[in-house]
């Protein structure tokens, strides 16, 4: 017990504190930028980020993962806030948390195994594109100063590390651009123009909405989207951190942890959030390894914002845009573009479809759903190819034997029927299914059709090995767990 606390919290104190500070600087721009996107005051996003980071530090399943108010979630809230207002957003946040806890208890995290690699890549790329697109409003209809500032900011972010790697370059960018804007007295938008910033520590708030069915009907569709997207991004991020640090995480605990964090966020007037891929990578890169890094990020964030609020208000939006463009670039999987040529076409289509669906609907859940569906269809199609029918005519020319090998199911049943030559006039047909697998009712229906057709031609039909072939239809999968099941499956 003491050992695991030490391991989970205090085994890397220096690295975690520094990394937490660095990450806090990358959290602030995202929280502010996406509060604006969602249509609420920056303080909603900042409180949420503080609260979610701190709570997940304790109850999350993946140490060193950073969760806060995110782009993926913010883009889902836009219409809710526009049509019903902030209080409904808070209520939806609470419901999201409840749903996520439920999903954690139902162990829905294990459904992640249906999300293929290409869908994950598509998700990540779509997320990067969403983050980038969210910066465009800050870059349209503005003076040349803003472009210059943004470009300068990006230059500092990527070039300053060549000078020193001991000061976070996003911090340098923010400080330099703020100083420049104040010194030159530029008339450009600052954080203060975006809405209210936190001026106190967060306090307990219960959303002021009527507790009735109508409210539920309004918030439920949003909450379910938020819950699904939040868990998807969190679990994907957890896998990325697992790989980076060569450690393991508790995915179901993470689901419940995200839920608890969102409930807590809703109760202090914050919006829903989830894990952040970009910031989590920054955390690991900066040396964060334990829960302490997540906690530090949240606490620093609040300290910076509450106590330096007047200064934060003076930060030009261009500086935050530069930081967010960096996050977007770092999140995008650039190797996936090079892989488009190398990978099979079906994989690339799945990835692209996921991206396109997300970018058009702004809903990562829909993108992932379409991606998973496409991947499943491609897979079914591929497996359907593993099938062939050979036939031999007996010496007297009266009996034809068809030998069926491979997988017969909904995707291949029609082709299975086409293999048979009904025009041939023979007395008897033998269908040998000993090496075939019938996976569903469609396959059986196909066989029935074949038998019927032959009978109508006046042919006697004998089917061999139907029982073995169709044993896979029975949904009692326990049968396949028994010893020798694999041999049975691979060809009786």
């Amino acid at each position, binding site marked *: 017990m003491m*050992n695991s606390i030490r391991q989970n919290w205090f*085994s*890397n104190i220096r*690295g975690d504190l*520094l*990394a937490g500070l*660095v*990450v806090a*600087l*990358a959290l602030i721009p995202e929280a502010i930028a996406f509060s604006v996107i969602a249509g609420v005051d920056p303080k909603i996003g900042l409180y949420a980020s503080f609260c979610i980071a701190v709570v997940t530090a304790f109850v999350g399943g993946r140490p060193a993962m950073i969760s806060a108010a995110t782009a993926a979630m913010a883009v889902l809230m836009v219409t809710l806030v526009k049509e019903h207002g902030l209080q409904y957003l808070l209520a939806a946040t609470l419901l999201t948390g409840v749903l996520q806890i439920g999903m954690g208890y139902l162990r829905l995290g294990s459904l992640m195994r249906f999300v293929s690699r290409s869908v994950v890549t598509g998700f990540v790329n779509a997320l990067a594109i969403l983050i980038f697109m969210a910066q465009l409003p800050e870059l349209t209809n503005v003076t040349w100063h803003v472009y210059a500032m943004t470009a300068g900011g990006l230059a500092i*972010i*990527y070039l*300053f*590390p060549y000078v020193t*790697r*001991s*000061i*976070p*370059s*996003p*911090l340098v960018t923010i400080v330099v651009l703020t100083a420049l804007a104040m010194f030159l007295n530029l008339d450009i938008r600052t954080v203060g123009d975006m809405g209210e910033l936190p001026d106190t520590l967060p306090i307990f708030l219960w959303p002021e909405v009527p507790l009735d069915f109508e409210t539920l009907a309004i918030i439920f569709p949003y909450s379910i989207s938020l819950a699904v997207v939040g868990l998807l991004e969190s679990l994907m991020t957890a896998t*990325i951190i697992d*790989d*980076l*640090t*060569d*450690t393991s995480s508790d995915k179901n605990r993470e689901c419940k942890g995200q839920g608890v964090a969102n409930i807590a966020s809703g109760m202090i007037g914050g919006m829903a959030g989830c894990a952040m891929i*970009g910031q989590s*990578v*920054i955390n*690991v*890169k*900066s*040396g964060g*390894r334990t829960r302490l890094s997540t906690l530090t990020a949240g606490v620093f964030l609040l300290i910076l914002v509450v106590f330096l609020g007047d200064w934060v208000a003076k930060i030009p939006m261009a500086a935050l845009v530069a930081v967010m463009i*960096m*996050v977007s*670039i*770092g*999140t995008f*999987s*650039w*190797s996936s573009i090079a892989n488009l040529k190398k990978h099979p076409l079906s994989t690339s289509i799945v990835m692209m479809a996921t991206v396109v669906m997300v970018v058009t609907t702004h809903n990562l859940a829909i993108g992932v759903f379409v991606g998973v569906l496409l991947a499943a269809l491609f897979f079914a199609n591929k497996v359907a190819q593993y099938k062939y029918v050979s036939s031999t005519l007996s010496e007297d020319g009266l009996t034809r034997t068809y030998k069926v090998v491979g997988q017969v199911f909904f995707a291949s049943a029609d082709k299975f029927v086409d293999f048979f030559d009904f025009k041939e006039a023979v007395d008897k047909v033998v269908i040998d299914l000993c090496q075939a697998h019938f996976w569903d009712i469609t396959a059986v229906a196909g066989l029935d059709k074949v038998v019927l057709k032959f009978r109508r031609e006046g042919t006697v039909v004998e089917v061999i090995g139907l029982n073995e072939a169709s044993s896979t239809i029975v949904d009692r999968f326990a049968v396949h767990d028994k010893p020798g099941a694999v041999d049975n499956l691979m060809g009786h």
Partner: protein
Amino acid sequence: MSHVIACIDGSSITLAVCDYAAWASRQMDAPLDFLHVLGKSEYPIPVDLSGNIGLGSREHLLQELAELDEKRSKVALEQGRIMLDAAKARALDDGVTSPITSRQRHGELVDTLIEFESDIRLLVMGRQGEQGDSAGEHIGSHLENVVRTLHRPILVIPADYTEPRSILVAFDGSATTRKAVEMVAASPLFRGLPCHVVMVGADKAESRAQLDWARTTLEQADFEVTASLRSGQIEEVLCGYREEHAIDLIVMGAYGHSRIREFLVGSTTTHLLRKSTVPLLLLR
């Protein structure tokens, strides 16, 4: 249930572990197995606070971290192999005739030992590991965990080896210590060594009877037994008696009480582990 398993790491205590394990292996005529567990060590992580991510940052970071781990692991693996070879050579020098083997595993020490539990006849490990070399009375971070988790005899040894010439069995009449007496009587480990049974408590008929039982059990197993009933603080009495009679090894039941009680009144086992300058054989 057949091997003497000796846990070695890079600490200065390793030599003594080899010697004691060799002694136990000779006494029991049991095969000796050296175990080196490559833990996921807490290496300092290179600090890069630039805080930016760019093209392919994730892939690069993964590669970078994997390369670092790879280098460290290779070195640790090689080091471990050298240590194991040295340990084997030392055990041979010490006159072990039974087969000597060695193995290296990745993971946590406790988890690894649980995996091998069925194989362990006697586990030999140092009082403190690599990190504890200069930590005074502090006991190794793994030790208490191992002792609490494993249900096999564990010989916890100090940094210097002296061949045991006499043993002390700490006895209180409880089920744990009765079992310990029976195990000592049945085992070839202490064959031929004079055996002191010490009971701490008030001089009551009941205690006498229990002590007599211990004496007869051991005498029947051909031990030369000195039984003694003393009153006072358990730890002090045991340590005092040991010094008086210059005893080289203490046998005791380990962690007989619940954790809650130990939290409140302290654990004799932990106390002795901390104070003792001679090997402790802990029996569960």
